[in-house]
């Protein structure tokens, strides 16, 4: 079987700002990969390219063997129709730094929105599934609460449940704990650990080196839009080979 994610020489610019300068990496099925690096290193941008929230300028990304954002036919590359791109995205979960829960919907409505509006699941089935997912992230008691009345940690757990509702084959986490008060970080990481233990393929942009060491199968250090160093988290964190990795780790550890 092919790897879940294959990125080959991915480049991305915003105007003159060349953010990704040739990223190549592979994520195996069931692998948990942590992306670390200083801010502005391009890790979040790379994550957003994987579900085509950002268009890449060159290179290619495949998820589960499918080219992302484009279709290849007879040696030519065609841009996907909006609906086709949306279908691709629905199979890739994404969790944001600022949660981005829908504030006009209750926790349960947030979780069921995708099932009902994208997958066409009927409301009662979606609610049964939604309640299960909220129970799984420890929020069975908060079904009818609006996001404004949940703590940051609870909101992020709802956001994870919302992504899981789409039965994704890959989960992307964009600094999921960076906007949280320190005492709330643990509850979100626990949910992510549980998810990793079920064999979900995950790419996590994070500053939580403890989580990376404990849960991740691989760790990638990015800086200046390139992969500087990658390997087993223990190896990279304990014995960084590159000077840039050493200087970054000395600041965050």
């Amino acid at each position: 079987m092919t790897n879940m994610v294959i990125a080959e020489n991915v480049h991305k610019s915003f105007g003159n700002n060349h953010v990704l300068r040739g990223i190549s990496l592979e994520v195996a099925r069931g692998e948990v990969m942590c992306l670390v690096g200083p801010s502005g290193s391009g890790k979040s941008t790379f994550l957003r390219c994987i579900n085509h929230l950002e268009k890449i300028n060159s290179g290619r990304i495949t998820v589960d063997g499918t080219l992302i954002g484009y279709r290849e036919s007879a040696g030519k590359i065609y841009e996907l129709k909006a609906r086709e791109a949306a279908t691709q995205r629905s199979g890739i979960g994404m969790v944001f730094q600022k949660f981005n829960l829908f504030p006009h919907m209750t926790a349960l409505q947030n979780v069921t929105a995708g099932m009902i509006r994208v997958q066409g699941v009927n409301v009662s089935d979606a609610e049964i599934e939604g309640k299960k997912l909220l129970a799984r992230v420890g929020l069975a008691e908060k079904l009818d609460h609006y996001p404004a009345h949940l703590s940051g940690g609870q909101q992020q757990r709802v956001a994870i449940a919302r992504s899981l509702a789409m039965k994704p084959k890959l989960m992307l986490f964009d600094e999921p704990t960076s906007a949280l008060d320190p005492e709330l970080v643990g509850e979100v990481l626990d949910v992510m650990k549980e998810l990793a233990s079920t064999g979900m393929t995950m790419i996590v942009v994070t500053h939580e080196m403890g989580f990376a060491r404990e849960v991740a199968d691989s760790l990638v250090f990015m800086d200046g839009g390139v992969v500087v160093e990658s390997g087993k988290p223990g190896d990279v964190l304990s014995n960084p080979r590159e000077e840039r990795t050493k200087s970054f780790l000395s600041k965050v550890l």
Partner: protein
Amino acid sequence: MQSTNHEPIKAVPLRHPIRWVVALFLAALSAAFVIDAAHRSAYDWKSFGKYLFDSRVIHAAGVTLALTALSMFFAIILGISFAVMRRSPNPVFRSVAWLFIWAFRGTPVYVQLVFWGLLSTIYHSFFFGIPFIHINNFYLGFHQTISQQFSLFWIAVIGLSLNEAAYMAEIVRAGLLSVDSGQEEAATALGMSWWTTMRFVVIPQAMRIIIPPTGNEIVSMLKTTSLVTAVPLVTDLYARTRDISAETYNPIPLLLVASAWYLFFTTILMVIQYYVEKRFARGHSALIGVAS
């Protein structure tokens, strides 16, 4: 401080003598005005009472209400459409919406209503079908003479709603801009299409911003209907009361009748607006923490 020391402060309240003086002065002034108005013959309160519930006036009030409701209904639909079109990834939609708003917001509503009234003079007929192709002068399509097709009432509705749509589009646009971009991103990441995102994520949140000025626009529309005389439609509240006063040579009580009805309607609208605003504050008010 010790918890036993829990006596409330007994202070002499601050006095506001100037407030009292101003309030008394205004109260006296208002009383004088009311007493004077009650006895002033020009107001002719007897006629006011006679015409307030005159069947012609009640019917005209109904016409004004129908003009307002229909025009605002179409204006809101069109306004949302144009605002959404301006955010569309499709450049054709964006340009069309911009052009519409530019034209209809840039000319006075009175002038537009006169134009619509002259529609049948400018375009004698309306044809929907395949152009240029005809067999023995028989065109393939639907053909209709305009003056037969449109009543003055509907011309007024079209004129009012197209003008208002331009303003509604700007109000809706401001509402859409107020929604955090992360919302659209999260919906997109879930695999929602652009339209589903608008319909279920962005627009409902924008409503909180859109509703207060829209209430304002409805009140404003109620009063703008008095301009339909430009079409010329003469069955609305203002035109009707003016016509009656042309018979009685007594305009002032009928102006008061019209004003009373306009005020009655705007008061009801303000009450409705209050409840609608509460409804769309879901998730934003500390009072409504849990869904019922």
